[in-house]
């Protein structure tokens, strides 16, 4: 056939077919998305430090292991309160002439998703220590350590942020370990990663593939009650550690803690829900309960796990008691 024997016609038409398809499945959708898209009204643009921190995030290649996207499937609920939408990425532009836009959505979750890390783990002290040596706070972590974002100094100068590193992780280090500007900027960027609330009245897209469990809600409540250890691991463990002993100079021990073992359940619940900053020798605790939308059942399960583990032996707290306190605190548990 003449068509097949003429290289101009043959290669020309193959190229045309490919270009036409490219225009329709890639170029037009991409253009459409970048033109017809505006950031959400509540979205805050990154400040100077946060932009610099994002550049540190890019240059260290964090995207190799961390995604920044909440898919509209039920299993992704742990990473954000609603699925991601195109507007979430609308204010991202090319980094500069040389480097492409960094949406940092990622394709691998070797480590956790970071879309909402600014709400889930906002503690600066925790983040700095975790960057210096992840295994100092999360024993099973396989994340690389980033000691080059820190320097050692003999004397602290004004404005220096020192991090307290457990002895076993500061071998061959003499002096004080101080965060560099890059480390502080990176943490500022991580703290800025928060899902933006949709404008009021606008329904969020639904999470798909819900667990259509046969269990009725009552049973579900009981199940969650049994899940205290796993809830503790998800919400508390990265600071207070699996052995409940915390980390010296950063996060207090729950083992033998008067608050955990005491009778002032109101204080206990309020710390979990709203955070705590009463003791200068320790880092500030954020309102884990409110930030992570913990339900009364979940709070009860965590409290009872803490009161009965690591040699702690205090009497069980009832769901009713916690619910009453939550009402008192005027916290409407959303779940």
């Amino acid at each position: 056939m003449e068509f097949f024997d003429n290289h101009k016609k043959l290669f020309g038409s193959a190229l045309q077919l490919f270009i036409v398809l490219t225009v329709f499945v890639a170029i037009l959708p991409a253009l459409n998305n970048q033109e017809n898209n505006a950031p959400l009204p509540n979205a805050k643009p990154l400040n100077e430090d946060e932009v610099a921190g994002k550049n540190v995030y890019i240059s260290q290649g964090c995207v190799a292991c961390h995604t920044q996207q909440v898919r509209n499937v039920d299993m992704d609920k742990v990473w954000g309160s609603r699925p991601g939408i195109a507007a979430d990425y609308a204010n991202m532009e090319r980094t500069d002439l040389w480097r492409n836009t960094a949406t940092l959505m990622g394709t691998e979750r070797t480590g956790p998703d970071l879309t909402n890390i600014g709400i889930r783990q906002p503690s600066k002290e925790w983040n700095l220590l975790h960057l210096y040596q992840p295994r100092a706070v999360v024993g099973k972590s396989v994340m690389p350590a980033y000691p080059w974002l820190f320097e050692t100094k003999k004397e602290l100068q004004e404005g220096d942020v020192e991090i307290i590193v457990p002895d076993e992780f500061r071998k061959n280090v003499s002096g004080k370990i101080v965060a560099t500007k890059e480390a502080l900027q990176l943490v500022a960027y991580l703290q800025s990663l928060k899902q933006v609330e949709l404008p009021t009245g606008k329904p969020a897209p639904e999470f798909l593939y819900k667990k259509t469990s046969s269990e009725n809600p009552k049973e579900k409540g009981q199940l969650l009650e049994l899940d205290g250890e796993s809830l503790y691991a998800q919400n508390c463990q990265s600071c207070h550690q699996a052995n409940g002993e915390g980390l010296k100079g950063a996060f207090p021990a729950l083992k033998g803690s008067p608050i955990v073992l005491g009778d002032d359940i109101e204080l206990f619940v309020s710390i979990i829900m709203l955070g705590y900053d009463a003791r200068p020798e320790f880092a500030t605790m954020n309102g884990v309960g409110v930030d992570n939308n913990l339900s009364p059942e979940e709070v009860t399960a965590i409290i009872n796990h803490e009161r009965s583990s690591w040699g702690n032996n205090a009497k069980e707290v009832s769901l009713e008691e916690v619910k009453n306190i939550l009402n008192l605190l005027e916290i409407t548990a959303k779940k």
Partner: protein
Amino acid sequence: METTNIFTESGILITITLIAIPIIVASILLVLKSYSIIRKQKYEKSKKDYNEYISSLSAKELEELEKRQAEIDFELTHQELEGNAEAVDKKGLLHNIKDVNELRFVEKKKKSQPRPNIEPGLTKLILWYLGCATFWLVFGTTVGEYLGIKFAAPDIDHLSWLSFGRLRPVHTNSVFWGWGSLGMLGLSYYVIPRVSNVPIFNLKTGYHSLILINAAVILGSISLMAGINNGGGEYREYIWPIMALFGAGVFISLINFLKTIAKRKTREIYVSNWYIISAIMFLLVIAIVAYWPTWQNGLGETIIQGYYMHQGVGMWFMLFSLGLMYYFLPQQLNKPIYSYSLGILAFWAQILFYTLIGTHHFIFSAIPWWLQTVAIVGSMGMVIPVVAGTTNFLMTFNGSWHKISGSYTLPFYLIGIIFYFTGSLQGTAEAFRFTNLVWHFTDFTVAHSHLTMYGIITFMLWGFIYTLVPRLTGKEPPQITVGAHFWLALIGLLFYTVPLMYGSTLRGLMWMDGKPFIDSVELMEPYWLWRAIGGSLMWFSHLLFAYNFYIMVSKNKSESLLLEPKDIIAMNKKSSLTANI
């Protein structure tokens, strides 16, 4: 969605079926073996009965037997036909006479055929390409091996240039643009002029292209380690000025090839050239779309990323390697391709469906739902070119299966073709929405990309290189190290991928159950260790490959054995000439 009945999901079922194919073949072998054992036992019993019977023969029967024995014992002198004269092969009809007097630990495979009429200049160019490719293979997989070790020992070093996030793209990009691309281009510098039946248009351009591409990979690797990258899209980590060098290198080779084809002496354009030229043209389109430095804000970046990474794999590597396969496979089997038309069907179907599937890496993400659906449909359409291609290759093999055991190149071809089938269809199954729930974001993707980029592309390239280089240089690699290379690479790949796929499935199910994330990290530990072990075997096989390549091209001749009569005569004539002077 109940997690307990994942076995009703078609995507999972297809994957299990694909993994099951080799296992089923092994089971069939097992059944046949046990059947023969049973039969043998039955036979033993009837032998016993027979023995009982013959121990009680009558005198007359014995007499008959003795007579028969005398007849059987009759012998000829063994010289009735040949006489006593010396054997002579006056017409030179006997070749390749096998010597049975040596210990055959390694079976003797067919030697490669010398092709005398290749210009030495072109030979040199091709060897440079393949040599650089081999270097990048060893470099890239050394980096990959080190990355695999980091999962088991995250504190093995604390240097920013060697940290995981920076080194990972160094591994992927150097095997992509260094090993795979240079290997394919080098081989096409042989295939394109040969099937066009003309010399290459311009040899020098070939070197320019080689230098540009090497420069891109060197600069790219250094800049990535220094922390300068494009912002995170996979295989798009080099910044555009560096990728422009690569693009320019490929572009000048494209012009070179087109000019070669334009003055071809054959009327038709052989199907290899369809695939190869299209792959090069498409790569340039893909690179320009993805790297044009003034657009892609917001999610536009992600849509283009999905398009780019998948077209890079499917239109550049896959299309190119298939083109090379359409030349080398018939040539190695010494028969025409089974169906030219199937090759053409697969060609157009690949362009049509493959272009659509890019966004299947971002299923359930914020990109438009219709685009995700198109990608899934396109992924299913990929069954057509994959089945057409596999059928074509296997039917070409048909009738020549016996050649595999006698060749050190064909096993590489066969493994490449099998993985082309299972790896590509696995990709289709992974694109289904449910399988995406379980496997997306896990190391299943890593296993899949190694089954394809390594199982398909790399195995095919090895087969082609072992075919071509001995023809160019007249030197063959030692069979034992080629065999060791093949088996280490194949077993290593299976150790790498199978545990990783199993562990990742468990991890995905764990996420669906809402278990704490760190538990899923702990779960992966043994599977990551298996990956490092498999990776080590693969890496060691690459050292053997590099050694084999060195043997095939090394110039320092050891004392050569002259076995051919004409060589011995020539040597004698030469020495008598020098003696006369």
